[in-house]
């Protein structure tokens, strides 16, 4: 398959005219036709003619496009508004919503010549970790169709595993990029808060939401991040920090860099095969020149409470506008899970409870920041599990809201702090289900995370494996 190749390889072929964007897009639509009915990764598929028209334009005006993403088909999680193209956030509330404007991330990719071919399935509003809380039927895990693909960015992750496009833009509020990446054997980067503009990203929890790349490899993520990162006058929380050339920095020397292993994250609750698979990678990292140090991060156990109180408070506020008066359908169309989250958040912000919940959670957030600061005095990056369990069967998570929440335990502490984290494939369970690990870095250390991920993927082959579906 053409789309087995890296973005760099494809881009080189396109530039040398050994491959056309039309061929690439045609292959993508062909695979989608065969595979998507089995996994249900799409909410809205862009009309093939429209995508081909763009492909022809890039092919004919090759010299005008300098970006390596030019002519390359990609996917957006359906949480990004796209002008004149239906955007639902996977909720029936926005079932027929056609936005009058586009997200900044869409504009940046459009400018670089990338070709959008689909709006992808997710947990409605980002509320979930399995893409079961969707009003457009769950996305299935390509490695075993009776299991979930993870979430909330389950649609893009499953699609990338099946090579339905070269990359995708996910959105991570508490693991929404990393969790499905780990469960579908793909690579996903949760960026530093503010690194990529959120303008046009339908908000789940505004102070946690991040816009990041999902792809087959860390190197592909580096190319995408370069195109989408940077300050945006439309997002007051976007960062002024300059955007480095992440791709060039992939080969930076890792000598002298230290990986910290918080041993308290490898105890109870973590499935044995996942634990074993991740800890086995220590040797690989050492071989790359990295040092290892064990440490403890006991305060991370408050992460779930902090995340769910602040996140749900914010979501109860962000979803207030969906009253069905001006656009969309009325609030009866929210799912039970979303209603539960709105109610918990409303409660936490209510007079008399604010001090006990929201304010306490903000204090907890400060403690998490200190805990990470402290850890980073011993190391440069932290090696953590992504998921405590392998992708469960349909219904297992959603039937039990508490288990559903526990599944996020390793991915919710980074967002309140704003830290970047890269999820990469690192093995398979005895049942051939994918396992991922995450590397958590300091603020704006995406370049280091991507370099470690890339050099790791140069000496491992997990990320090259594909589901048998293909």
């Amino acid at each position, binding site marked *: 398959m053409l789309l087995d190749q890296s973005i760099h390889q494809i881009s080189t072929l396109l530039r040398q005219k050994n491959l056309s964007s039309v061929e690439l897009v045609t292959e993508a639509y062909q695979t989608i036709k065969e595979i998507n009915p089995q996994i249900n990764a799409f909410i809205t598929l862009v009309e093939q003619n429209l995508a081909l028209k763009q492909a022809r334009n890039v092919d004919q005006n090759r010299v005008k496009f300098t970006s390596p993403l030019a002519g390359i088909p990609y996917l957006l999680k359906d949480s990004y508004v796209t002008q004149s193209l239906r955007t639902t956030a996977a909720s029936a509330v926005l079932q027929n919503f056609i936005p*009058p404007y586009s*997200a900044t991330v869409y504009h940046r990719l459009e400018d670089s010549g990338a070709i959008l071919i689909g709006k992808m399935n997710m947990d409605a509003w980002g509320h979930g970790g399995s893409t079961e809380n969707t009003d457009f039927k769950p996305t299935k895990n390509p490695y075993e169709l009776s299991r979930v693909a993870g979430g909330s960015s389950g649609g893009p992750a499953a699609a990338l595993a099946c090579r339905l496009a070269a990359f995708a833009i996910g959105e991570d509020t508490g693991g929404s990029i990393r969790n499905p990446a780990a469960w579908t054997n793909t690579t996903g980067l949760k960026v530093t808060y503010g690194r990529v503009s959120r*303008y046009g990203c339908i908000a789940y929890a*505004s102070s946690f939401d991040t816009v990041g790349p999902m792809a087959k490899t860390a190197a592909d993520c580096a190319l995408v991040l370069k195109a989408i990162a940077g300050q945006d006058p439309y997002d*007051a929380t976007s960062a002024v920090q300059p955007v480095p050339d992440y791709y060039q920095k992939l080969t930076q020397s890792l000598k002298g860099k230290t990986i910290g292993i918080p041993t308290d994250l490898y105890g109870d609750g973590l499935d044995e095969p996942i634990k074993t698979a991740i800890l086995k990678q220590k040797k690989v990292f050492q071989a790359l020149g990295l040092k290892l140090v064990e440490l403890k991060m006991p305060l991370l156990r408050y992460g779930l409470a902090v995340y769910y109180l602040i996140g749900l408070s914010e979501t109860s*506020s962000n979803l207030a*506008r969906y009253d069905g008066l001006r656009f969309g359908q009325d609030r009866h169309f929210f799912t039970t899970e979303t209603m539960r989250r709105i109610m918990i958040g409303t409660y936490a*912000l209510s007079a008399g409870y604010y001090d006990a919940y929201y304010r306490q959670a903000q204090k907890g957030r400060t403690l998490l920041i200190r805990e990470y600061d402290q850890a980073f005095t011993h190391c440069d990056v932290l090696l953590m599990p992504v998921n405590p369990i392998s992708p469960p069967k349909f219904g297992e998570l959603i039937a039990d809201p508490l288990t559903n929440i526990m599944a996020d335990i390793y991915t919710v502490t980074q967002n309140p702090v704003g830290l970047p984290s890269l999820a990469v494939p690192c093995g398979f369970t005895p049942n051939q289900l994918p396992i991922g690990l995450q590397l958590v870095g300091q603020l704006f250390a995406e370049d280091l995370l991507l370099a470690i991920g890339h050099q790791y993927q140069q000496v491992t082959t997990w990320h090259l494996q594909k589901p048998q579906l293909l």
Partner: protein
Amino acid sequence: MKTYLPIIGLEIHVELRTKSKMFCGCPADHFGKEPNTQTCPVCLGLPGALPVPNQQAIIWTLMIGQAFNATLNLESKFDRKHYFYPDLPKGYQISQYDEPLCSGGVVTLPEGVISLTRIHLEEDTGKLQHTTLNGQPVSLVDFNRSGVPLVEIVSEPQIHSAATAKTYAQTIRQIIHFLGVSDCDMEKGSMRLEANISLMSINPGSKPQTDPGFIRLPQYKVEVKNINSFRFLEKAINAEIQRQTAILDRGQLPRQETRGFTEVTGTTKSQRSKEAAKDYRYFPEPDIPPLKFTPSQFKTLIPQLPLMPQAYLDLFIKTYDLRPDYAQTLTASPKLAAKSLAAFILAQKQGLDPAALANLMINQKAITVKLSPSALVNLLQSKIKTSQPQSKTTTLMPLVREVLKQNPDLVTKYHQGKVSVIGALIGAVKKLSPSPVDPQTVQQLLTQALAQK
């Protein structure tokens, strides 16, 4: 019978006349525009849209704070205030809760000094229009006003009469008008008034303790909204004092509630009681980073304040020897005040008396508006050359006194507050005078003479 001391606090909203709205690039000037033509994803609260604060609006709010001697806070932030209403597209208003841009401040009135609680910045809402469409009663929303910068000035409950409340509001309006940051036009809704009113029982005979430090506020508070003019503010407060007095006299406690003023009846009507009080669920606006300033940033960011009305008054009266009432008249608007000052400076340079120029400007208002300062000075110069030895005032004053003597009943009515009788008195002077008279001059002389009576 018990007596009561009114405890009144005012909340004044002022729309800033910035070029663009508070959190987006849409034009802020919305008055009289075709509905929903000045909107964008941000002020319509569309999915994914984000607010970016307007720097000019922040600076102007700080300017207002400086004009009232408020403390400009080094740290400030925006908060979300939640409630559902069709004119509020996001389901929350971006406002400021516990860290406003400015804290404290004072407003100096002839009656004394009123302290301010705070001055904060927020966004305006859209506007509902209840109308008929194809024979059906409908409610329409116009979002042109949605997101226009709105400054709220909150006073301490230190006002004790409707008249003082009115003076306070007028003074605020005048100062903001002089700052040039708002039209302060009540008819256009760019200035809105709300009053919080309650009554405190006072033991007969004892001197009312009005020092704010010693006042124990009453257990209730009535908020009156929908006040569209200074006159209505006075009326609404008096109506409310009357209503609450009657309730307290019966030995009951007025309900804590929000009431609306009805112009037609001149009374207030209950809108919302305490039981239905809203829980706004304030929390820090996560889409806007907290604002942090240094004292030196305040210095560079905030432009030097223009001359304030009081400064003009002082100059006009002390430096240029104007009559206080003339000085007042000439500081009615920032434009007129600035023009007068320029004219006085020029007059003095040419050896002319600024007070004489002021007389001319007041007597010939229609001309004053049109002429430049230098043209005004020229006019004065030409008048002096052709002037008669006797001024109008000295010839008219005896006539005025004669008319007052002849109409004792009208004089009594005037002193009872029926100032409209002055029309009849002017007519009488006209009749008595052998030559045509300027009614405005006559009115001034009458007012002067009546004040001496």
